Each structure stands twice: as C-alpha cells, then as structure tokens.
C-alpha cells in the first residue's frame, strides 16, 4: 500500500456517490465541482464523519474503511479544516491547538501548540479566543489545529471561501509554502478553478457525486475528458462537429462544423460520420493581423464578424461570429493594445485561425449551451 491517500466511495442514496480520489504524499489534490456536487461529503467520508454504503479509504499504508473496517474519526489521523473553521469558541487559540495534540505527553502539548501557531504566523495571539480573531487568523488556527495531530492526510474544505480577497491571496501563498514543510497528502475542496489551478498538482472533477476526470490542472483544462467536464470547467468555445475523414498520412482528422471544414490532429478513436464535441482553448485561436501575415495563418482560417469587444483592463474579450450555427461564436482574449492596433470593434470583419493542435475532440455530449 502506498503512503498516500486513496478513496473510492460508492452509494446510490441518500447522496449518490461514485467517486475515486487519490493523492500521494506531498501532493496537493484539488477536488473541484459546483456546489452540491458532493465535495464535502467525499471529505467527510475520508475523515470518518460520514459512512458511505461501500468503497474503500486507505491512507498512510493503513485501511480506514472497506465495508468491514470502519475506523471512527478519532482513529483516522486526519487533519480537517472545516469551511466554517469550527474552532472551539470557549478556548484560546493555543488551547484549540493543544486539544488536538492529545497523542503527545501532556507536558509537550503546549510547546507543540506554540510551534504550530508559529508555523501559521500567529505568534503573539495564542491567548485570544476565536471571536477575538479575524477570519484569516481563525483559518490559521484551524490549520494549526488540523496539523496538531500529526495527521497522515490534510483535508481542507473550501478553506479560503470565507475570507476577503487580499487575505485569501495571502493564505493561499502560505499554504503553498507550508506544503514544502508538511509532506503528507493534502486534499483541497474548492469550487474556484483558478485557486485549484494555482495551488494543486492534480485536479479531480466531481459532479453529482461522481468523479469525472483526474489530471494535472493544465492537462484537464486543455483536454477535458467529456463535454460535461468542459462545461463544468466553464471552458468557452465548446462546439459540436461531425467527423469527415481521417488523414493519417498527414496526422490530421477533418471535421465539419457549421458548414465549415476544420482540420484537427489525427483522432482515430472517432468514427467517420460520428458526432463529436470539441473545444479549443483561447490561446489556440489566432487573430490574423491586417498589416502582415500571422503565425499559423494557413491552419483553419475562418472569416467572421466581431460581435462583442469588451475591454477588461489589459485584455480584451472578443466574441467573433464565424458561422450561423447555434453557438457558432468563438470567444478569445487578446491584449487590449493588440485589439486597438487591429481596430477591433463590433461589426468589423476579421479572420482567425484555429490551430489544429489546439482542437480537442471529445465524445458527443449533448447540444452546446
């Protein structure tokens, strides 16, 4: 058995679960999904606070749950940071942490508590009660308390949801630094994709209690496993097309999209004539310059009309209508100075290229929304 965490959870009701999560020691795995997708339930199953009908939870080389075995939370060495922090309101920060260090001899607990509060930058606030601390400070106490058990896994349930933006950035930075010092699996539940991308080594997508995909953040974002995942990731530029033909000698597959023929990288998994969904990340949509040729100009050049051109600080969000199919509009972000130089404005005719390597085909997953 590995030293990391592995959880497989199955049940039909009352909360449907068909989830699998793994996280190696020293890895930070983000569990991402919309609210109500069962993220917290997965964490609670790992911690022993919720018993699924079937499945398996093992961590640090020992079995915590497998249907026959069901260790109580006290015997699973989990550090759990609750979304509401759930600090003991009648105890000081130090006492909160010390209470979780019950496995140490009593004369060592205070020193351990102070050490951990120091680790989370709370030196000098040991005597304060939770109500006398700010949201960010409470979150730090919760983290110190979670670490006080010398846990084999750290579970963080939306730990940054209740603090302001500035504090969130700071705490996120601290978590990234703390990871270097605590070499245990860390599971971060979040609905914030940017947060997951920034902090996590792997992302597991959860929807209706079902894990849909697991992978490195960049990989999952660029190559979602299904249209459903693409929608959950809020990827724009999700379309459907029909496979026209495979051209293995050119390493290409052609598709028909709203009357246009596009070339994608060779994808023999799809049958000719099959319907498929596809996405393209904005960085693979290249706007042709008016003054001189652009990179990849010959790849899938498409003419369109600018429908939306919204300046958002340094970037400009542009929506180009390229065909009269429903959803036949490409979204892309370009530098604002670039947009100005090209005189982009609603109603302007433009040409873009869709780089073949950026077109990612997926099994057909319903009509585009």
């Amino acid at each position, binding site marked *: 058995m590995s030293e990391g965490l592995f959880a497989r959870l199955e049940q039909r009701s009352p909360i449907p679960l068909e989830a699998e999560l793994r996280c190696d020691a020293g890895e930070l795995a983000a569990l991402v999904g919309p609210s109500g997708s069962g993220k917290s339930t997965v964490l609670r199953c790992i911690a*022993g606070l919720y018993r699924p009908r079937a499945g398996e939870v093992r961590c640090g080389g020992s079995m915590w749950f497998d249907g026959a075995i069901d260790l*109580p939370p006290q015997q*699973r060495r989990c550090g759990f940071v*609750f979304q*509401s922090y*759930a600090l*003991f309101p009648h105890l000081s920060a130090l006492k909160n942490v010390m*209470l979780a260090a019950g496995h140490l001899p009593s004369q060592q607990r205070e020193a351990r508590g102070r050490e951990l509060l120091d680790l989370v930058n709370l030196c000098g606030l040991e005597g304060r009660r939770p109500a006398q601390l700010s949201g960010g400070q409470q979150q730090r106490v919760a983290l110190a*308390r979670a670490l006080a*058990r010398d846990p084999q896994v750290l579970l963080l349930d939306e730990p940054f949801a209740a603090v302001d933006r500035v504090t969130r950035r700071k705490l996120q930075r601290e978590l990234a630094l703390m990871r270097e010092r605590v070499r245990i699996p860390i599971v971060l539940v979040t609905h914030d994709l940017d947060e997951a991308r920034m902090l996590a080594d792997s992302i597991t997508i959860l929807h209706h209690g079902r894990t849909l995909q697991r992978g490195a953040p960049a990989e999952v974002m660029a190559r979602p496993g299904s249209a459903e995942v693409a929608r959950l990731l809020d990827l724009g530029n999700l379309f459907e097309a029909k496979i026209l033909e495979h051209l293995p000698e050119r390493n290409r597959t052609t598709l028909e999209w709203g009357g246009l023929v596009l070339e994608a990288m060779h994808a023999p998994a799809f049958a000719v004539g099959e319907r498929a969904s596809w996405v393209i990340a904005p960085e693979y949509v290249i706007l042709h310059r008016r003054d001189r040729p652009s990179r990849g100009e010959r790849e899938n050049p498409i003419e369109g009309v600018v429908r939306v051109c919204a300046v958002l600080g340094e970037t400009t969000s542009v929506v180009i209508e390229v065909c009269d199919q429903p959803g036949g509009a490409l979204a892309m972000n370009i530098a604002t100075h670039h947009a100005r130089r090209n005189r982009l404005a609603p109603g302007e005719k433009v040409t873009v290229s869709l780089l073949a390597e950026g077109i990612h085909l997926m099994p057909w997953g319903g009509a585009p929304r």
Partner: protein
Amino acid sequence: MDWTALRLSLELSGLTALLLLPLGMLIARELAWRPLRGRAWFEALVALPLVLPPTVLGYYLLSAFGGASWLGHAYQLLFDRPLAFSFQGLLLASILFNLPFAVQPMQRAFESIPREVREAAWVSGLSHWRAFWRIELPLAWPGIVSSMVLTVAHTVGEFGVVLMMGGNIPGETRTISIAIYDRVQAFDEHAAATMSALLLVFSLVAIAVVYVISDRNKRA
C-alpha cells in the same frame, strides 16, 4: 412560618434537580442531535406538563401510583408502604412535571453547538466522552444552569400536582406552596404572608439568574 414545609420543598426541589440533571441532559442531547422518527411527538410528550392542567396530571399520576396500579402495587410490595401520598411518590411526580423545564433549556443549548464543532472535536482525536466534557459541557453550561434553576423554582412553586397526589401530610408531602394554602384556609394571615413573600423573592431571584446567564451568554 412552616419551616418543615420549607425544608421539604428545598429537599424535593434539590433532589428533583439532581436526578433531572443527567436524565434531562440525556434526553436533551438526543432531541438536539439524533435524527429521530416522530421527533415532534416525543418533544410534545416532554412539553406536555407545560400545558396540561396540574389537576389532570395529578389525577393520572395518582392513578398510576395508587395501590391499584402495577407501579403502586410493586412499590408497596418492595418497600411495604404506599407510593401515593409519600415523599418518594412526590419526587417521582416532580421529575415528570419538571421534564420540560429541565429538558428544553438544555436542548436549546446543545442545539446551539454547531455540528461541525463536535465533528472537529472527533477529528481532533477527542473521544465522545472527552468531547462531551471539554467541548459540549462548557458550551452548553448556561442552558444547563438555567434548566436547573427553573426546575428548582418550579418545584418549590408547584401546587396542583402536589395537592392532587401528595395531599397535605406534614413532613411528608406538605410543601411550602401547600403550606401557604393551608395557612390561608386557617386564616393565619401572618404565616401566609411571610411564606408568600419568601416565595416571591425566591422566584424573582431564580428567574433573574436565568436572565443574567442568558444575557452574558449573548454578549460573550
């Protein structure tokens, strides 16, 4: 001033509170946290003495404790004395009619402890027993004190049930509130007035204590 009655009242209320402390806490925790089927009916049963006329409650208790009932009969066999019209009978009745006063404040107190705080205690490695002593009890204590104060005050003041099923036996079932009634019947104005004033002050102090605790709790 009937000192025997006062002592009896204090004994009765003290013992009632002492016995209701663990029992009430047990019921309160169950009602607060356990998913129960028919919870509403169970809660209604606990709250029933609040709305039931004391004479009705007294009547049923009298029937239940009398020599004709299995309980009264068993008691008679075991202890060779009747349960009805005895201090022990009165204590049992007192526990029953004080259930809502003991359970409800404690139930609210336990309910106000977020589930996640208890779960945090468990995942911090605290056994259920330690979580109870270190987390639940310190957080629920204002409610527990309130419930004990209310129980004592209510027992001292209870009249109808006591009269129905305890009668008016000096040193056995004559509590101070019965003694006041007794003194009024005997036109002993002075004794009735003294004891009434005592109960008035006692009740006021008791209820003030409850409010002080809940006020402090709100501010904390």
